[in-house]
Each structure stands twice: as C-alpha cells, then as structure tokens.
C-alpha cells in the first residue's frame, strides 16, 4: 500500500521535525542571556527563591542535561508546570485549546467554502468586473492583518450596526454546555441544547470571519491562477475536442487537477490561522490559547511558553500531514508512486 507507506514516512518526518522544534525552542529558552529563574520570578524575588527555582527546574545543570530532562518529561506527556497558574502545562493547554481550535476550524471551513468558489468564479470570468472585484478583494484581504479585520468587523457589525455580539464565546446568561470535547458547537449538540448551539454559532461568526478573511483571499487567488493554468493544459483542449460538456469540465476535469496546488497551500494558510488566532482572540475576548499564550509570555513562564509552542507546532505538522494525505488522494502520481507499471 503506497499510500500507507507515504503516510508513515511523513509521520516519521513530522516526529523528527517536532523533535527539532523542541530542541530549537529549548535552545532559545535557555541560551538567551539572563537567568530564566530570575526573569520568571522578577527583580523583587530573593536570591534564595531564585536558587530554589533553579534547583527545582534543573536550571543549575548543564544545558544538555536539562534537555534530557525535558525530553524525558515530554515522553511522559509532561510539559512541565506553569509558574503562573501552578498547574501542569498540559492541563492548562487542554482547557484553553478547544476554544481556539473551534475558532480556527470554523475559519478554515469558511476559507474552503468561500475561497475556492470565489477563485473559480474569478477564473471563469477572467478579465471581467467579477474577476477584478474578486482579485481586489483577495489582495486586500491577504495584505490586512487579522487584527485589523477583527477591529473593523467589530466596529461595523457589533458597535455601529449591532447585528453580532461584541465578544466572548457565549453571553453571560447562557451556561456553557457540559464539557465533553470542549467544542461548544459539538458539546451543545451532544447535550441536546439547540439554543446553546445557535448562540455559540452566532458568537463565532465575527471572530472566525476576521480570522478567515486573509485565508479566503489567498485561497481564491491561488484557485484562480491554478484554474487558469489548468485550462491551458492539453487535456482540457482534449476534453473540449471530444465534446465534454463545459460544466462537466469545470466541475470535474479541470477542477480536480486545479485543486492540487490549492490544497497544498491550505496547510500553510491554516498555520497562519493558528498564529492569527492569537490576534483575533484578543480583540474578541476569546478565552482561548491566545489569552494563555500572551499571559505566559508576558510573565516569562518558561515551561508554559515551550509547551504552547510545541502544541502549536504539533497541530501545524498534523495539518500538513492531513493535507499531504488529501493531496495524494486526488493526485494519483503521489499515491501510486512515480513508477510506471506497463499495462
């Protein structure tokens, strides 16, 4: 099964890269000038407190030994303890991550559902007003940081013309659904609370749109150029010479090959969303990983910073793995390997 072999190979590479990421982050964390314990405790801590923390975190041992400790804990799924919340980093992340993931996944869905059709329309009406509009929209959204969209959308649709809620995942008078997955959309359905589901979705609109906009632009732009490029290929000329219906070509014979580059880029866009979620969450008071991440960074909470970055890098690699699999599903050349099997 070549596809299984491919999957395993990519998985292996991802694990190695993640290992590299841990080394990188670890180096950055420990090599940077200054005593991390002192930075963490601040200038007012006594030397005894600092020394105690150094000993507790093995900061007094050589860097290589420290890294081995770190790896040992990592192998047990332990990312250390936050100095700020005094809880295990994994527990903290597990409680903040679902809110972020829900936001990012909904934004990712928007990116696909809006970006790809926009790109196709743009390619279909190449050179006409529809195309110009779509391209302008695409390039504008790509150039605008997510926080700018967040601020503008919030001003327009929550303050001036209050169609959508200002911030938060739920209004104060609605209790969160019983936490099973941490995704309010899913939990509310599982708990049979359609009203909570609707309110959650309603609260998700603005933040996820702000987060998705630049991805939508990017996807539309790429889909457009990919469709145009595909339409120049001989096999499309062949489809026409053989009388394939234009609609069938657009929906099937041009669409599928054109999707390959778009899909490849989607992984990158998704990564950008993971990062931009930090910005959007801040504007919309979203109690996700951003709140935690910024908090721990400002407090120089070492283990928590390393843990957060590791988790984000892991999600990013996982996304790319999924994208790789999807690409290989539509691209038989990858699925079956380059080799020729003579019929």
């Amino acid at each position: 099964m070549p596809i299984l072999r491919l999957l395993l190979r990519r998985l292996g590479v991802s694990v190695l890269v993640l290992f590299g990421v841990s080394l990188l982050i670890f180096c950055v964390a420990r090599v940077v000038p200054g005593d991390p314990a002192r930075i963490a405790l601040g200038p007012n801590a006594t030397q005894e407190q600092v020394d105690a923390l150094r000993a507790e975190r093995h900061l007094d041992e050589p860097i290589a030994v420290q890294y081995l400790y770190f790896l040992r804990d990592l192998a047990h799924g332990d990312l250390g303890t936050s100095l700020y919340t005094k809880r295990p980093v994994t527990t903290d992340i597990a409680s903040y991550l679902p809110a972020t993931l829900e936001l990012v996944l909904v934004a990712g869905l928007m990116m696909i559902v809006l970006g790809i059709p926009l790109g196709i329309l743009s390619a279909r009406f190449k050179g006409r007003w529809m195309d110009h509009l779509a391209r302008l929209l695409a390039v504008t959204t790509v150039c605008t940081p997510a926080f700018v969209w967040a601020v503008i959308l919030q001003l327009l649709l929550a303050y001036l013309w209050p169609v959508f809620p200002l911030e938060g995942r739920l209004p104060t008078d609605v209790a969160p659904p019983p936490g099973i997955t941490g995704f309010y959309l899913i939990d509310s359905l599982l708990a049979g609370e359609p009203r909570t589901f609707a309110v959650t979705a309603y609260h998700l609109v603005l933040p996820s749109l702000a987060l998705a906009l630049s991805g939508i632009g990017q996807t539309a732009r790429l889909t457009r150029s990919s469709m145009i490029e595909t339409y120049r290929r001989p096999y499309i000329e062949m489809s026409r010479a053989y009388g394939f219906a234009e609609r069938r070509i657009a929906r099937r014979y041009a669409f599928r090959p054109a999707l390959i580059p778009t899909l490849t880029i989607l992984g990158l866009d998704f990564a950008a969303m993971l990062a931009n979620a930090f910005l959007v969450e801040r504007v919309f008071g979203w109690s996700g990983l951003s709140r935690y991440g910024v908090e721990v960074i400002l407090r120089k909470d070492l283990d928590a910073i390393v843990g957060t970055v590791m988790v984000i890098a892991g999600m990013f690699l996982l996304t790319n793995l999924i994208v790789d699999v999807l690409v290989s599903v539509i691209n038989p050349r990858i699925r079956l390997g380059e080799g020729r099997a003579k019929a």
Partner: protein
Amino acid sequence: MPDDIVLRIADLRLGFRRGRHIAEVLHGISLHVRRGEKVALVGESGSGKSVTARLALGRLQQEKGTIVSGAVEVAGIEATREPARIAAARGRLVSMIFQDPTSALNPVFRIGEVFEEVLRAGGQRLTRQAARERAAKALAEVHIPDPERCLDSYPFQLSGGMNQRVMIAMALANEPALLLADEPGTALDVTVQAQTLRLMDEMTERHGTAVLFISHNLSVVREFADRVYVIYRGHIVEHGRTAQIFAEPRHPYTRALMQAAPKLVAAGLPDLPETSPAFRDPLVVHEGCGEPGEVTA
C-alpha cells in the same frame, strides 16, 4: 454541394487582434476532405496547420480577439456561424488526435473514467458497466493487450505509445465522420510513431473515417495520405494527389520541403527549408484536384 464532403474550407481567413493591430495568420485557404478520404495538410510550424484544425472543431472562433471569415463546414455544420451545433458535433461527428498523447490525457483520472465520459459526450446512454465493456472492446481493437488493466490505469502509468493507442480508440469510439490528427505521435520516438500511423491507418480504414492529417513531415505523409495540401505561411501553395506531388513537386516551397526531409525517418525533425521569395509563388493545383464547387483546372 456534394454531400459526400465531410470537411469543406473555403477562402478561410483568420486574424488575431492585439490592441489595434490585426495579425492575419490564414490568408484565405480552401480545402476539402471527402467521406473516408485521407488528406494531409503539410507545412512547417507556424504555417497555420494547427489553427486550421482548431477552427474545424469550432474551438478557435469562440476565443477573444479572433477574426474569422470564409467557410468552415464540418459534416454540413458551419463551424463559425453555428457554435451550438458544432459543439454538439464535437466528439460525435468530428474528433481529434493530439500530438502528445500523454499530456492530452487528464493526469488525475483513470483511462476508464475518461473513456466513459468520451462515450457519454458522444450521446450514448450507457450504464457504467456497458460503457466499460464498450471501452474495453475499443481498446482491444487497437491491440492493447490487457484492456481491463489499461482502463484502471492512469496515463502516467502507461507508455507514450500505449497512450497514443488509447487516444486513437477514444477518437474513434463514437464513429466520427472526420478525424483531425494533429501531428500524431511526434512526441514519441520514431518506431512508435510509425506503429501509431499504421494503427491509425488500419482503424480509419475499418471504420471508414475521413482524416485530415496535419504534419510537418512530407515523408510521413507519403504512406498515409490520398491527397496532400502544402501550406506555407497561411497560404496553400500546392495541392495534388500524393503520387502526383511526390512524382512532380511543382511549387518551389514543396521542393524545398522535400529536399529537407531526411531519407530515413530516424533523424526526427527534418531541417526546415530556409525562406525564399519563390515560396510566395501562387498556388499550384495538380490535375483533377480542384476544390468542389469551383472550376477545376
């Protein structure tokens, strides 16, 4: 007009508009192909052969900035003025074989999937199973050893020669009256190209399909065509039966082309003749080869 003519081109002009300039690439060419006849259109690249084929499919007319005048009739359909009818005729009455079969087959679909679409485009209402059987039969007809396996393959898994056979089988699957062959097999090596031509000859003979064979290579055309048109920079310069042209090439350009053609086909592309004012000499029509509807010489 006699109704055994499947392709009639009369005084066809084609120009491309670019800004305020119009570049004319066909300067009023006329040619015809009768039912079951094999006609070659020979000239160097850029002479206007391939655009002629695309005009016969009615494809080029729809593109922005093209200016077409004159007549292009495929099986009685005016390809310029009846875009809907010619669109319906594509794949059914007129079909085409491409230069590089591997790039002309969609890389992300199995041969079987594309073949099924070809049959559907030909207006055949078949179940999936029936379509597959038809396709397998057509592939067996072009001497593909394991048709079932071929249907399950992707183009990149097959050799170029194999893809060319697939292409021929697809082109003839709906029994078109006219087949346009644009330098078939030029992208393949010479022996495979020769096999391809023989196969195409055999198949069109069997199905009674008329062929407009487009090539830059006179010697390839010799074995295959009944009649030959030589085209030079958008003008037809010589027209005659294959035997007549090869026995007595009258136009300076034809003579130059013939000298340029390698004696053995092994060298691939022949060197093309240098240009010369004599190539602009008027059209030479051999005895008994006039265009239908005009006073024959």
